[in-house]
């Protein structure tokens, strides 16, 4: 698929899955989408391996935008991008945006065929800073 992929990374698998449900309701199957949440041991948290797997699942040659919730999700996502390495790493961006609104807005933008840069900019508009 040529539309930008969306990855949702939350500390909570329930939040991640619920956010993905909302995205699907908006854009159906037009956008590659994956989510992950939880520390891999049944608790809250995020883990690099799961994030790398989600990026693989949502991979698009147009790139992937990652939406995260709290700090560890961002740090772990950036680590995952670094471990995936070039050339794919330059097509993956961790967005600074609220996770639910950001994911829905980014996916909607992506479903219209927007570039990675445009998708990420749409998500960033939701953040005041």
């Amino acid at each position, binding site marked *: 698929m040529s539309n930008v992929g969306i990855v949702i990374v939350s500390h909570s698998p329930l939040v991640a899955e619920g956010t993905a449900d909302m995205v699907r309701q908006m854009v159906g199957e037009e956008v590659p989408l994956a989510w992950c949440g939880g*520390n*891999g*041991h049944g*608790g*809250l*948290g*995020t*883990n*690099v*391996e799961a994030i790398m797997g989600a990026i693989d699942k949502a991979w698009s040659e147009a790139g992937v935008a990652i939406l995260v919730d*709290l*700090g*560890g999700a961002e*740090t*772990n996502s*950036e*680590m995952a991008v670094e*471990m995936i390495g070039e050339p794919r790493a330059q097509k993956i961006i961790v967005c600074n945006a609220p996770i639910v609104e950001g994911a829905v807005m980014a996916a909607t933008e992506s479903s219209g065929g927007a570039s990675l840069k445009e998708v990420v900019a749409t998500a960033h508009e939701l953040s005041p800073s």
Partner: protein
Amino acid sequence: MAALNLARLIAVAAETIAAHAEELTALDQAIGDGDHGLNMKRGFEAVRAEADAFAAKPLPDALKAIGTKLVMTVGGASGPLFGTLFMALGKEIAADPDRNNLAAAFGKAVDAVAARGKSQIGQKTMLDVLQPVHDALAGGKTAAEIADIADAAAEATVPMKALRGRASFLGERSIGHMDAGARSTALLVRSVGQAIGESA
């Protein structure tokens, strides 16, 4: 430098973290999300399980592999932060480092942690221990002196206001508690000093 027994060093570090896991969790519960002790214990036990394989590698490769293992097993924000410390150290260190090389490599590793966490000194994080430890390394201090400097630096995070991580959400209320990452960093520094002392 005395020949480093890496397997022994890993064992001492893993035992120290395990012995302090509840203390670290309690510190993290006070101003964070309360998973630090368990996360660190899980990560260092995973490293310990493969200690012999790590020890068989040249030092730079061993440190990089330990860092990757920590990234994959610690979780939380600590996984990438401690993992980055070891990975960057492995990238910069010589196979048989002298003090100058160790201090320089450690300095680069501290910079890498700061970049990963988008943080700097004085924000109540592990950096507040790492930086004084680097300075002590560069200044020729002994392992015992460096361990004491690390403990004092962790203690010095108590009156700081957290500006990074979950603790920063608490603002002023983060004052009066030691940062859990600073404490675990100090514990690791003492472990390394102890293991090196044994082999000296």
